[in-house]
């Protein structure tokens, strides 16, 4: 393997990787243990923001040290997640709200129906 990598590079990479794994584990535990669906939507954000940032930063540091030039393409992952995850989350929340309304559960009423009644 590459022997030129100093300890000062490997320690941050190791810490960031383990942190990323811990955030993913915390998110999965929350996904399993939360009571309500709308509470359950929150924990996965921990992995898609903090976990992804940690792992991408570890990848950037490691490859930059390995090739002794800035290798920044791992930024694409958190940027892509920051664009796509809110869209999915918003759509899933709307779908869950709609399905719960159809099932007659106790959820907030629709706001836009009042506007259509007036017109």
């Amino acid at each position: 393997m590459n022997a030129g990598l100093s300890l000062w590079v490997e320690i941050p990479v190791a810490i960031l990787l383990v942190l990323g794994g811990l955030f993913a584990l915390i998110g999965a535990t929350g996904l399993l243990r939360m009571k309500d669906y709308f509470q359950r939507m929150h924990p996965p954000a921990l992995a898609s923001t903090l976990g992804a940032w940690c792992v991408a930063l570890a990848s950037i540091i490691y490859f930059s040290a390995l090739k002794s030039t800035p290798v920044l393409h791992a930024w694409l992952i958190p940027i892509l997640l920051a664009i796509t995850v809110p869209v999915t989350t918003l759509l899933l929340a709307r779908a869950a709200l709609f399905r719960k309304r159809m099932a007659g559960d106790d959820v907030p009423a629709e706001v836009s129906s009042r506007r259509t009644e007036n017109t």
Partner: protein
Amino acid sequence: MSPLLSNAILLSLFLFSVAMILTLIRLFKGPSAQDRVLALDYLYIIAMLMMLTLGIRYASDTYFEAALLIALFGFVGSFALAKFLLRGEVIE
């Protein structure tokens, strides 16, 4: 690669695997359809992080492209499933 880094990579891969197993339990148990879609989306994200970690382990750039593809397909799949849940029952 020093033993410190390879052990840290193994530990983080282990943590990702445990997270995937917990998410799979939610995927199989989930009371409603949206719970399953959420768990599937989370599985995609963990698999993508796992790919990045494997890329560090083998010092290869190819894993990054796999991670990017997994992120894109996860988004498209979750989007389509959420859209189906939103429109599947209603007559517009």
